């Protein structure tokens, strides 16, 4: 087998091959995630319970204490 004389070409080739390999690998990994619904399982079993815990424990304003001023707003009437 002849040895490649062009160093640049070789590097580019390797880079391309790595890139292609990386893309392929990413595709394979993503396809596994997709096919086995790993995204759904992760969201359902990890993310949602954590978020819910956070939302359930959040401090919330007591909205029943909101003011209700009787005369604060005018009658919006324009064509009179």
């Amino acid at each position: 087998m002849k040895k490649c004389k062009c160093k640049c070409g070789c590097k580019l080739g390797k880079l391309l091959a790595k890139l292609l390999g990386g893309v392929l690998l990413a595709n394979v990994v993503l396809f596994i995630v997709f096919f086995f619904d790993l995204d759904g399982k992760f969201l359902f079993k990890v993310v949602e319970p954590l978020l819910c815990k956070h939302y359930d424990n959040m401090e919330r304003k007591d909205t029943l204490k909101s003011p209700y001023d009787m005369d604060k707003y005018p009658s919006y009437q324009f064509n009179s």
Partner: protein
Amino acid sequence: MAKKNRDYKKLARDFWYGKPHGERRLGELYEDKTGLYKHREWRGVSDTLYYFYNVWLYNYAHMVTDVMKYGGPINFAKGVWRYRWLGQTYLTAIHWIDRGTEGLRGEALRASPWHHRGMINSTIKQFQRMMKADTKIRGGKKNDAWYHTIAHNETVWGGMFYPWSDKFESVPIEMVPYFVTCHVNCHTVHNYIDAVQSIGLPGDPCPMCQAESGLFVLDDMPDYAPFMVTCNEACDASVATSTLQDWFWDKPLFALPMPMQFDDPLVHKYCMKEIEECWKFVEEQTGVPFNWDQLVKMLKLQNELQEFEWEKWDVAAKTDFYPINGVSQALYRIYQSQYGENEIWHFCDKKVRKVMERCVSKKINPYPQTRHRVIAWSCAPLYYSHWCTWAYNCWGLNVVINMDSLMFDMTIRTDSYENCLSDMATYHMWAPMRRMAVGGMHHIFELWENMEKFNCDMVAMYDQLQCKGMQGVHGLFEDEFRKRNVNAFWMPHALPDSRTVSRMELRRIINDYMTTVMHEEPLDPSLLDFDDSMSW
């Protein structure tokens, strides 16, 4: 041990093309209760790869780019942390597509998910605007976005604010926090319903309105605009909801009523005046005058959407080549026609047109296992809008069209101010869940003419248990079904509340009807009975 007799040819065929309908056993793909997939469906090489790249990956990628495009990751992250409806829903959007597209193949798979893409984009656009303007996630500070956003009730058509759309963004108050979320992840809305009942509201008013009120009770509504426009749609409860919203939001509120007896020319005239009043209110609040040219520009764009919708209906009504499934048809149409103009609709319609034209020119039937063409009437269970997908896969029930799709059956004239206003008044009064529901009970019986028009032989009659308007005509429908010898099954539900009638219970009702009345065998028996009570 006996050696298994494998048919390798068939295995190869199933691998390449996917299993034929009767052999799919889709019900076996689910994990018990959660509705998660043990693995996603293998639809054959081409369709699986299409779904993987063009639906799953494409939508995940765009969910990221849309967030970046409309308001940036920081607003988004703050929003997720602050608002339950946002955090619990956003990430599960892909599974919403999954549920709506189960079992689809070929052209049906290429057309239907575009509708979900349109809705997801529009949803992100809206909630990102909310977050961009929200004072609650920035310590009460009002920014430029806050001053340039118009808040309105989700049933006030977005088109009302077209005259200001070059300077202001209008964002419906409840469309994303309530309406979209209960389709995507039905868990969130339970919190809001419970919240409003915890302050003493009885359980019987419309659960949609309860959820809308609950958002305010739980202080889970962003403060994203200086004023709001509300209306009396869909019902008495919606009128009353405005009172709670007024109390808890405490900002200038304009009530833009939709008169009830909309057939009456006197009523129509009055409605036109009310719309003008609303415009004057917006002018007063924003300090920006009404822009006729902007209104015309936007209406022309919206009219294009309606014209394509008519083409779609034509294909759906007259041929077997309509590639859009029941859930995509229903949700996209109501979303698009209510929200109003948005560039994503045109993009998606272009994609769908291509598929539809291909189906028509090549005479492709995307739903070859159709046994019955079904029209779905009244308002649908929001937590189970994808029942149509199940019904086709299990029983061959193809939901061709639904009532909400047919509400806005009009374009809007832009040749003169008078004509334009007149048409806008009609459009306004034909709001969702309304055109057939109010203004005289004869409207709700337009079912028969639409059934004929769309060549349907069966009715899926939604039975919203807490809708007083529909409950009030229940018996007359029963009488008419009997008199006309129409095959119809009732689907009881409580709009967003999946706890009242579960999805499993709904399926059981349809199963019972199909076996005991229609005496039919399921196409996929694995879908007859499964537990998805905890699913999104």
